[in-house]
């Protein structure tokens, strides 16, 4: 089931556009398409529905798009750097670090702005980078990163930090639910501020990854071969790890832990358009954004006016689709 690159990108773009339209149209409150057109063209003024579309739905869609694209791209890079199909953006302890930061803020009950920023995403971001940095330092010896040690250190550090988070949750029983929901991931409180907060990281991260796509192709052949071909493997690894950590940390800080997207999207894209990273990057970005927007539509509407955590939807959609792709390939 391999499409030509152009057809694939074209289909993805159409699907993404359709998903965005659906995401604007659907929600807990029914707003007719003509009203929405009215609102989007700016003629509806300051009505309540305009607030729903511009204040709630639009930032949510953009945020889901950015987070999905980030996780897709980060997953793709890490699978290549680790040459391990199980690598995902959370492999260096980012999810556990972010959870710890978020749990601390929720238990301490801080809500006032810190340096003009909301403390929750800020703490999650710092926690994520702290964990990634620890894992990186543990696996760095004589200026070289051992991928093997990195994987194991990631597991160990994650386990340790998760235990700390669980401890905090038990101590701060009152905030258990808030922490629980944060960890399950979602875009409940999406707003434009969050979009502006992570957009620079996403754009810069993607541009950097794009500039390294050729090197990623070379690295797939193995460290030694890549070195022989004139690539500074250690430096490339370091930069790519730093970029994906920043990218993932930014995404996680506003959305919580949304699993499966970073693992499955790059694989699905690879199965559909092949392993050339110059193409795969765009496939992963678009597919990640598409999956996230569709998941969020379901999250918002399945149990409206309640919401399902997006992380649950991505796992429920992602896993069977992935199994299907594997099955198709296996034949």
């Amino acid at each position, binding site marked *: 089931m391999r499409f030509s690159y152009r057809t694939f990108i074209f289909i993805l773009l159409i699907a993404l556009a359709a998903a965005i339209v659906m995401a604007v149209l659907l929600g807990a409150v029914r707003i007719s398409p003509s009203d929405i057109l009215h609102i989007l063209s700016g003629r509806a003024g300051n009505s*309540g529905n305009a607030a729903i579309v511009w204040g709630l739905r639009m930032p949510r869609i953009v945020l889901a798009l950015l987070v999905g694209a980030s996780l897709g791209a980060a997953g793709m890079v890490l699978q290549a750097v680790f040459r391990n199909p199980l690598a995902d953006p959370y492999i260096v302890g980012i999810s556990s670090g972010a959870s710890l930061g978020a749990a601390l803020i929720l238990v301490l009950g801080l809500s006032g702005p810190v340096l003009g920023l909301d403390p929750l995403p800020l703490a999650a971001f710092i926690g994520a980078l702290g964990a990634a940095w620890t894992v990186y330092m543990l696996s760095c010896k004589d200026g070289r990163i051992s991928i093997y040690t990195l994987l194991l250190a990631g597991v160990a550090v994650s386990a340790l930090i998760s235990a700390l988070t669980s401890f905090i949750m038990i101590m701060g029983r009152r905030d258990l639910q808030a922490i629980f929901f944060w960890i399950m991931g979602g875009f409940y409180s999406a707003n434009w501020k969050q979009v502006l907060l992570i957009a620079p990281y996403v754009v810069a991260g993607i541009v950097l990854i794009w500039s390294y796509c050729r090197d990623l192709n070379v690295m797939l052949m193995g460290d030694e071969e890549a070195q022989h071909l004139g690539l500074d493997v250690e430096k490339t690894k370091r930069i790519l790890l730093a970029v994906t950590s920043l990218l993932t940390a930014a995404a996680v800080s506003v959305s919580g832990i949304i699993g499966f997207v970073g693992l499955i999207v790059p694989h699905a894209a690879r199965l559909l358009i092949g392993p050339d990273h110059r193409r795969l990057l765009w496939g992963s970005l678009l597919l990640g954004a598409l999956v996230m927007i569709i998941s969020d539509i379901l999250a*918002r509407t399945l149990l409206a*006016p*309640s919401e399902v955590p997006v992380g649950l939807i991505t796992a429920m959609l992602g896993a069977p689709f992935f199994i299907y792709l594997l099955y198709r390939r296996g034949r």
Partner: protein
Amino acid sequence: MNTYLEEGIKAQRHRGAKGFRILFLLLSLSLFLTGCRRTPLSNVPGRVFTDALERRVTLPDHPERIVSLAPATTEVLYALNLGERIVGVTDYCNYPLQAAGVTRVGGYTNPNLERLCSLKPDLVLAMHGISKSVVGQIERAGLTVVTLHPTDLEGLYNMIKDIGYITGNKVEAVTLCLSLQKRRQAVSDMVAEASHPSVFYVIWDEPLFTAGSGTFINDIIIAAGGCNIAAGMKGYAQFSREQLLAKDPDIILYSDKIKLWEKLKRDRVWCRLKAVRSGCIYPLNEDKISRPGPRLLDSLEEVASLIHPDRDRKAR
């Protein structure tokens, strides 16, 4: 967040660790079975009470050592002047202040059985929400345990009368109920034939959680002459921000456990709400309004005066 909610979520979260938990419970069971002496059953034909789990419990004649396994029952016991007889309470029992000096036996769905047993209570009062297996374990330890389950304001009166019967303080219980009913009637008179402004109660803001039908919060809002916009939902439920904007309630009440005002000032979407613009947004003591204890009437009076300030003034 209130205790019912958080215990429920905790139970959900810990479902994965069930095996471990059962093992742990078995372990603690065996510990206290060996460590605890069973109190011999009295030969006196005792009084019998059918509790919320449909168990027929033979009551001690005059319970002297009572463990209260819920904040609400603790509040009722103190209101009936039975504070002297309480030997154990849960970690959540923070009212009245005297309760702080009593031995804690853990959470109310998962009390520490060893600690509970060591207090040698002759009566354990539990509330709905405690699991049958925990009740069974307390029972097997030779303790008398009664579960209660008030679901609405009427249920509160019944629970108080039941506790009066169980503890042998019927008169005090009936007197307390009468005074509560009188206060309830005064509120009903005050809001009678008034308009019904729409009300929204915020338990938690991210994600937005509210109280739907079947909660005391919902009952209080209705009894206070308001109309809960989340009445269509069952129990404590997540509410979408879209719906909130669309329904645009006249009044927003929120739990004093969250700092909603600080967030609102900085949130452009919330600022559009009618209640926020007109300043009709008030914090409420969440323990008072979510616990089926005598303080529910305090909440009722407070909410009624917030919803109908003009009538409140007239009534005074």
